[in-house]
């Protein structure tokens, strides 16, 4: 039986299952040519349905943590469990299978420039071997949700940065992921576009998706109903539940700018 954690979302706005979807036990990550560990003795548990913001200065280990979660890297020591599976023990086909249940959004969108908006989003379903009519229905539905139904057949590169990020989010959401991992999703966007992206992430969260966002963005850090985990020097230095004790906005901005909080 899955272990239980406290429900951080007390106001009833977001559903939160208490089953753990992510668990890190004494995780360290050392890159071969790095002077110090990217992650050092990180322990973290994330329950189903949580909205977790990973904050911290550049080089704190936020992206490394996300890379461990979507199996782009393996921990040097410790264990990473995703939906009950120890990621160190996965075969190549297991990795492919588990990636189909998680959505990933990057700062640089990672879209295929020569494909249309539709095809970029459809790719996530094609790799699952879905039927063409099912793909069409789901892609059109998710593009409508992210407000890009009118740009379905445009090449991805013809879109603005904010629109491209919405396509990336649509690609992540179209598989109805259990976990959505976002690495600086608003890093390349202005405030207005960042707000649109934030709203999409919150919508996914409200539907029950576990959302983990690595960010410097104060707007994301200040968003309601989230848990903030602050990393610094590869360690978790602060883990505040939603509506719990939070670092001040100023200290978070200091973190963003690389100054100690």
């Amino acid at each position: 039986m899955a272990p239980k954690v406290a429900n951080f979302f007390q106001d009833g706005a977001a559903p939160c299952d208490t089953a753990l979807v992510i668990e890190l036990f004494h995780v360290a990550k050392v890159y071969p040519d790095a002077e110090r560990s990217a992650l050092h003795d990180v322990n973290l548990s994330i329950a189903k349905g949580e909205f977790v913001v990973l904050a911290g200065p550049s080089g704190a280990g936020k992206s490394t943590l996300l890379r461990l979660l979507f199996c782009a890297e393996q921990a040097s020591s410790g264990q990473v469990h995703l939906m009950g599976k120890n990621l160190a023990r996965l075969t190549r086909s297991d990795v492919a299978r588990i990636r189909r249940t998680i959505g990933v959004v990057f700062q640089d969108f990672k879209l295929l420039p020569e494909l249309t908006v539709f095809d970029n989003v459809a790719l996530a379903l094609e790799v699952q071997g879905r039927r063409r009519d099912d793909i069409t229905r789901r892609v059109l539905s998710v593009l409508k949700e992210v407000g890009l139904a009118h740009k379905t057949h445009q090449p991805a590169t013809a879109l603005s940065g904010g629109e491209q990020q919405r396509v990336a989010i649509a690609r992540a959401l179209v598989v109805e992921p259990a976990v959505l991992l976002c690495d600086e999703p608003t890093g390349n966007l202005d405030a207005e576009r960042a707000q649109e992206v934030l709203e999409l992430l919150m919508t996914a969260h409200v539907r029950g998706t576990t959302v983990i966002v690595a960010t410097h963005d104060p707007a994301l850090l200040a968003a309601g109903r989230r848990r903030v985990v602050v990393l610094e020097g590869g360690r978790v230095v602060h883990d505040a539940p939603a509506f719990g004790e939070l670092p001040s906005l100023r200290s978070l901005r200091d973190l963003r700018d690389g100054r100690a909080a």
Partner: protein
Amino acid sequence: MMLAVSSSVLKHGLRSLRSGGLPLFFAVLMSALGLFSMTAFGTLLWNFRTLAAAVSESVSAVAFLDVDGAAAAEEARATMQLLPGVERATLMTPEEVLARARRGLRGGAAKDVAGLQMPWVVEVIPRVTLEDSAAARTALVTAIEGIAGVDEVAHPGGELSRVDALLRLMYGAGAFLAVLIALVVVVVVSNAVRLMVLVRRDEIAIQKLVGASDAFVAAPLMLSGIVQGTLGGVLGLVALGIAHSSLAHVVSVALSGALGTIAFVPLPPLMLFLVVVAGGGLGAVGAALSVWRHLREGS
């Protein structure tokens, strides 16, 4: 689901081909050149077999009989015809033997043989195959000698041995050429696919990111390798067709002469089809090598 996967493979395979550019063109060209050379050599070999058969007919074994009457001679001929390795056994009467002897001699010598009593003779044409060997032919001569009524067997086995050796040499050279060309095609297609993989590495990374299996990544690239090899095979055959139509007559004239008219024929359609299939197969092997290497490096 299979249909959905096939359409995805086709879609991404076509994109791979479009991204192939110059390396793809070069790979198709090299495959075409290689398969053209291989098929051209195969055509030569195919026609040389016909030539070898004609040579074998000119170096038939001759069995001189010591029999009384046509019935016994025919019985000996029929026995010879049933021996394995005999293509045809023809009975010649003493008169026919004498007439042939006179045709082969000139002037006074021809006059000298007039009135000679010639024996009944059976001319035996052995089958010439790659499997033939000097030992097999010696065994055939021994078997003929063992037949009742056979007095002596004359067999110029040296010529057949030389034809046999030449056939073996050509088969060996053909096999070597085939292996060499297969390697060249595999390497060229493999490198073309490798370049395609490099051009599309970001796309492959994104496919893997959204959960693509190794098979999903590999299938379109394999498809492009198969298309390259098959196109190479088809182009090679087109070139061979052009070469054959221009040179067949010249080669036929060169080969014809003492052995009669030798038609320089193309390979049978089934073998030509197999060349195209082989091209596709070699393309698949080349693509598989590159894809496997990329996936292994990426793991």
